[in-house]
């Protein structure tokens, strides 16, 4: 993938992030110490199965886990503010500062666009409300111009008609593009996309991905792209993190991960990807991913791993670092 307009400065660094959900018996860990870093203008892909903690990671980065349902139990999330060069620790700032970061600096688009819009409010008011949060005084004219430009950049025209419609009047793909425009309204530098295309048809998925790539270049966005589909991630990501049972098992530049996977889970995941016209060559990973909370000692992938031996079941493998890459496996040192 081309390197777009990347500089080497970090914009977001998360260190040893853990989160857990409450349940009647005990707390269920969903994230167990995940490190991620994002450079200015870079796109990282987060891949994992359901239960791997990938969506929890998105919520954690924005401190959006519902207080009644769970909590962030550890780690630091540091955001580098551009104007002042100041480092903001998102995990410890107060709520009013946090509100200035959310939407303004880091934005989120979710899986189902229909649930992220209020069905009884026209589109324009969604934009207006979102703008008002970060701009106390503004001219209606300026907002209209800004929104029209954004809608134009996600290929929704004519703006006037779009803004006067209710969410249900759109198809899923159009509404997802509108939600991208809404997410970019306050000029965020980071966009978190949590499975943005998994509720859409394949031809629509293609359009949404193209829009996303286009926006990335136009606004110099840094993107965190979360998906269970590695083929989709490969279209946009520069670096990839593979999550399994709440931990990163492998990370590194996309090209190296795909050409030379080191962790057995990554290897198996790549083999199980569907290939067009490759009939009869389905290779799946045996067994099932552990449920959050049911993780035993040792490597969490060991029960499904064909390379595993006694040691793998006893001790948790520490990450092996090699240049930009990292993986956690005893068998691949």
């Amino acid at each position: 993938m081309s390197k777009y307009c990347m500089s080497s400065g970090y914009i977001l660094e998360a260190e040893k992030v853990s989160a857990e959900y409450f349940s009647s018996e005990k707390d269920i860990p969903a994230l167990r110490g995940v490190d991620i870093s994002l450079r200015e203008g870079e796109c990282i892909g987060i891949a994992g199965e359901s239960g791997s903690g990938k969506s929890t990671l998105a919520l954690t980065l924005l401190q959006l886990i519902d207080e009644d349902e769970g909590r962030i139990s550890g780690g630091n999330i540091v955001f580098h503010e551009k104007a002042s060069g100041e480092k903001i620790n998102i995990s410890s700032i107060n709520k009013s500062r946090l509100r200035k970061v959310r939407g303004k600096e880091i934005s989120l688009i979710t899986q189902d666009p229909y649930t992220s819009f209020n069905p009884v409010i026209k589109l324009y008011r969604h934009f207006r409300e979102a703008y008002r949060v970060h701009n106390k005084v503004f001219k209606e004219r300026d907002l209209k111009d800004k929104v029209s430009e954004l809608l134009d950049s996600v290929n929704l025209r004519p703006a006037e008609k779009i803004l006067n419609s209710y969410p249900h009047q759109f198809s899923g793909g159009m509404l997802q593009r509108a939600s991208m425009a809404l997410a970019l309204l306050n000029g965020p530098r980071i966009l978190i996309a949590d499975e943005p295309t998994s509720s859409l048809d394949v031809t629509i998925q293609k359009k949404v991905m193209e829009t996303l790539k286009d926006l990335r270049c136009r606004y110099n966005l840094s993107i965190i792209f979360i998906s269970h589909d590695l083929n989709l991630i490969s279209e946009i990501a520069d670096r990839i993190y593979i999550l399994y049972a709440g931990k990163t098992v492998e990370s590194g530049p996309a090209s190296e991960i795909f050409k030379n996977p080191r962790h057995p889970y990554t290897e198996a995941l790549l083999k199980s990807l569907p290939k067009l016209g490759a009939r009869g060559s389905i290779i799946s990973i045996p067994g099932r991913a552990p449920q959050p909370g049911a993780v035993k000692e040792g490597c969490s992938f060991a029960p499904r791993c064909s390379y595993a031996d006694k040691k793998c079941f006893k001790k948790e493998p520490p990450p092996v670092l090699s240049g930009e890459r990292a993986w956690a496996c005893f068998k691949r040192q």
Partner: protein
Amino acid sequence: MNILEGKKIRKVFSREGFLGEQLGCVEALKGVDFRVSAGEILGIVGESGSGKSTLARIICSLEKPTSGSLIWSEKIFTEKKRKLHPAQMVFQNPYGSLNPKLTVGYMLREAISAGALKPLKSIKEEELRDVLADVGLEEISLFSYPHQFSGGQKQRLGIARALALKPRLLVCDEPVSALDISVQAQILELICRINSEKKLSVIFIAHDIEVVSMISSSILVMKDGRAVEYGKAEDIINRPSAAYTKKLIEAVPVNPYL
């Protein structure tokens, strides 16, 4: 030999008002022809609104076609005076397809008894275990409830329930689109294995041509209630003739590194 042939299947849904008057109608299927030959996997691809699920429901007699006919091969009906439907269905949503209040054992017992036309109590435990073994769930407890299983396991249970009736045709309506990629591969593998071991014909419906191409021997491409292309899987993937098929193939994400 064909096991099932559909001729000019049309389906019109109409909306009725308070006094039964017609308010409007939608033509979901506009005359679709298809064939399923014995022991093959027919893939049906199309996006939402293409009518592929309506076609599946018509094949399973959940809906009546407005016009057109389904011709089952005679052999099925002469062989045994079956009251039983020759097709069974596997559904998309693994969470909604199993009754949350029934144990796995009861669900399978009911399915086997419906298939064998025998009373519920005469079904032995070995028969249940055999069906579970077919879908790779040998070890589960017969007293467990659906919510105790993962999405992939629920989908296996759904397939087990369909197999328990010993159908001639398995209709899978988007069986993998709610699952993670690695679990998708497991279910596709399972459907392939059932197809070859039991010589069971399968209709496999999906919106993703990539997935369909992994397991089907012939493919029917649908758009807006019409069949736009039908033929052998290799031909359709390698030499698509309809513009829409080409569009579907182009939309498949291409991994630049592999």
